[in-house]
């Protein structure tokens, strides 16, 4: 089958060792986590790293735990673990929804949360979900640790705030009582990347929208979010009409491109449709109706 170019391989046992290996092997070395994005790129020779630094042995990064008013997801949490996580389902059903439609079981068994965010594929689902949740990521370098909001993490397609020689180690999501969330994706086939997807996180005060987060993927939304639609909803009524209007705003402000998944008008329509539907479902969940 597809044949990659030559590369060296190192296995790290700790985060510090991984950082040291990256420093030693220089800018052409790359971290490998689940490998489900990196290996296909290597086989197609779109990536030709000189050295792979394997972080799969870093047990310290595989945690999902509640710490105070946030949930912390280690970078090495596998999609399958996130899908099965009762903590995620309880606090952020948007993540469970998203994981259900990310790739297939084989990919989900190995692919990681950190790898997904760092790959920063424009059609990546977790970025949209975490952006809707206003999560932050923790980035470690030899010099120390910094915390970056997910909505500032992406610099463009396949580019993030993680510099060479750094590791993403954790994703932190604030727990807010009384929120509801949901995620929907349209795909051509199970396991296909999204034609378009949307996620919504909503908190209500009676029938008023106190706050809302709307994530989008595969439609060219900067930072995977729809801020104009969020602004349009915030402080207003939580009604089907308002959700449909927010959907239209989101559709207007994203910039999808045409490809074999569909023409631009269709993708915009999907944004409108999916934003409306996820807002409806998130609201139902916030009200305990779903």
């Amino acid at each position, binding site marked *: 089958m597809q044949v990659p170019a030559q590369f060296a391989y190192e296995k790290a046992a700790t985060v510090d060792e991984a950082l040291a290996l990256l420093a030693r092997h220089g800018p052409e070395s790359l971290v490998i986590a689940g490998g489900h994005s990196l290996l296909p790129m290597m086989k197609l020779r779109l990536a030709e790293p000189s050295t792979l630094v394997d972080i799969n042995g870093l047990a310290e990064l595989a945690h999902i735990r509640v710490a105070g008013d946030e949930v912390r997801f280690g970078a090495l949490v596998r999609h399958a673990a996130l899908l099965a996580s009762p903590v995620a389902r309880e606090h952020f059903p948007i993540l469970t929804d998203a994981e259900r439609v990310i790739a297939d079981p084989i990919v989900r068994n190995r692919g990681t949360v950190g790898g997904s965010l760092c790959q920063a594929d424009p059609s990546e689902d977790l970025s949209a979900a975490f952006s809707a949740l206003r999560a932050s990521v923790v980035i470690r370098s030899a010099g120390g640790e910094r915390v970056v909001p997910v909505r500032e993490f992406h610099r463009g397609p396949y580019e993030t705030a993680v510099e060479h020689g750094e590791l993403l180690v954790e994703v932190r999501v604030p727990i807010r009582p009384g929120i509801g969330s949901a995620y929907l994706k349209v795909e*051509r086939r*199970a396991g296909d990347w999204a*034609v378009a997807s949307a996620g919504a996180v909503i908190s209500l005060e009676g029938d008023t929208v106190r706050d809302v987060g709307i994530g989008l993927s595969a439609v060219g939304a900067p930072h995977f979010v729809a801020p104009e639609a969020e602004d349009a909803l915030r402080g207003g009524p939580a009604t089907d009409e308002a959700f449909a209007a927010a959907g239209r705003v989101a559709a207007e402000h994203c910039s999808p491109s045409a490809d074999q998944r*569909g*023409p631009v008008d269709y993708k915009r329509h999907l944004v409108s449709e999916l934003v409306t539907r996820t807002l409806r479902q998130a609201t139902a969940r916030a009200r305990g109706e779903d």
Partner: protein
Amino acid sequence: MTGVQDPSVQIHAAAETPRGYGSMKRKEDARFVRGRGQYVDDVVLPGMLHGAVLRSPVAHARLTAVDTSAAEAHPKVHAVITGETLAGLGLAWMPTLSQDTQAVLATDKVRFQGQEIAFVVADDKYAARDALDLIDVQYEPIDPVIDARRALDPGTPVVRDDQEGRTDNHIFDWSSGDATRTDAVFAEAEAADDQLVVAADVLYPRVHPAPLETCGAIADMDPVTGKLTLWTTTQAPHAHRTLYAIVAGLPEHKIRVVSPDIGGGFGNKVGIYPGYVCAIVGSIVTGRPVKWMEDRSENLMSTSFARDYHMRGEVAVTRDGRLRAVRVHVLADHGAFNATAQPTKFPAGFFGVFTGSYDLEAAHCTVTGVYTNKASGGVAYACSFRITEAVYLIERMVDVVAHDLGMDPAELRKRNLLRPDQFPYRSPTGWEYDSGDYLHTLEVALEKAGYPELRAEQADRRRRREAGERVDLMGIGLSFFTEAVGAGPRRTMDILGLGMADGAELRVHPTGKAVLRISVQSQGQGHETTFAQIAAAELGMSPDDIEVVHGDTDQTPFGLGTYGSRSTPVSGAATAIVARKVRERARIVASAMLEVSPDDLEWNDGRWQVVGDPEASRSLAEIAMAAHSNLELPDGVEGHLDATCVYNPPNLTYPCGAYVCVVDVDPGTGAVHIRRFVAVDDCGVRINPMIVEGQIHGGLADGVGMALMQGIAFDLDGNCLGGSMMDYLLPTALECPSWELGETVTPSPHHPIGAKGVGESATVGSPPAVVNAVIDALAPFGVRHADMPLTPAAVWSASRGRPLRTDLAIT
């Protein structure tokens, strides 16, 4: 909602091996489920080198320079072969299966993205692949011909300027049926108030068979004996051997083609690919075995595609629903080389069966083949030589007619299906349908589906939707197909002059165990089991006692191989007949054993028995031992029971089937969910019902893939947009409902065991059922046709009155 599980269709293998026909587990699976199959890539020979092909990144360009010096200097590289090297051997071009030529390695121009330019032989596959990057090729771009509908426009660049005097991209015009009669019926229909003419443009897009195992070969030219052994992924080992002998001038007895376990073919492995030829030349040049296995993208981008038929169908019909005549024009995109694999006299394959299962007064079609800057092929993917396209067209047209007449599509079909008393039926395009009871088959399917209840549910849903409820659209789609398989009678059917007969040899060992050697080649169809069962049924043996050998030209009789659902119709017939020959020889031996005349014996329950005396009988095992013993044998036997047979089919066989598909369509997203699929097949006598059902399951999944997601489009620069499994989608279990199968059995009257072949039935019959269901769901939007693949985008766009053109990049 998951599909309905019908317990009656769950056929499990019998606990005990049947003595002939019946469900039994596949003998070959013992090795497959243990990971002990042996595919070409599993073969490792001492001293073996590895090849890799350099391919063109552009669709159309003149080659101005190919500099291989840096690649040759790579320490692990043994040879770099270019078009120029091959031209020196007279092998730069090779003949195709359609009397055209195809470049092995490009010399003058590249004509499609992915075309072969050079071949590197190195110590390992990594070095071979690395060295490709060291070859420097200079291209002078030419405008590519991509849109088949513009290929004949004046001023279009000429793809095949290698052919002397050629000034356009026209390959052939072919027609079938009676134009005058057909036009007359159409003229009448146009003039009469109680009749009308219904027309639609229907595309069967380019798809790819995408077998899990890609194509490859290991060439081992022994410099001492001069014998070439070629391990290769081929559905037709004997035909390949003969072609290598003719094309390369190698003596045929010094060529052994071995086709070991094949990981799926679907027609993709019928032709000879440049990589095979390069591996042979590589072995000759280096004196060592050379392995070449293409990768997934190479397979999708450069090997035989399927379909790519742009069809215009017209039907003359009375307003009360009598189909009178069908007229079709096809524009066939054959890519850069006309390399379709089909019988010589059939440049459009068996498209002539486009009249389908209906009683028509007249029919006529014309097919125009054109060159474009795309990969070549055309006949592949379980299409029964273009019957897929024909069935899709007529079954789509019948639904368009039903739509335009406002008539129920089941009712319209019932009114027009051929009746049992019309068989053998000579179609308006000259095909002789052997047998069928179409109305019965359709009724079994409608009954199984609960058709009236489905229509009632649909009407209810439409009412609720109109009342403002959020409900999915529901669609019900039918198809009724007739196939013509088992090519074919040698007086009309040959491939490059080789008649389409197939052979079988049966050898019975002294203890009564047997070896059956067949000329066809399994790619997953279960030949090792089915063919053992055929012989066993004739000889009163257990199939477990018969070893089936295939896929090695030094071990098996000549024949044209497995494709077009021909194995059981042709080699299966040969197997039954060779077993009967053995039985007749056994009769003579038994007569000597029982000291009676052969005429006094009858074949009873698997034994030769003295007429009227069940005590005096002999089994085949007893007779086989006697045949090899010191028994004095009468005239007519020489001491063994072995026999051979070559079967020349008197006609094709005509399997048929009725399919019902139920879909739910989300009008907000265009997403299609297949709720149920009922498939009632009539493939005549079923030898191993479990294997037959497995074949149908696979074909139905294929059909779902083609209808909903598969398609290879090109952008106008000629970039192939289906070159990986991320872009070219194969259906998964999640898109497939729990199939609900049923059967009717109308034996073929001219086949020795009444079997008709089933390998491609479901691939042929299912796409129209799925598409008809989706279009039916979209009826509230006024949609009467949309082209495959019906992705969510295509469905939504059609519902908005802006159907997508699915052969080109979406812009």
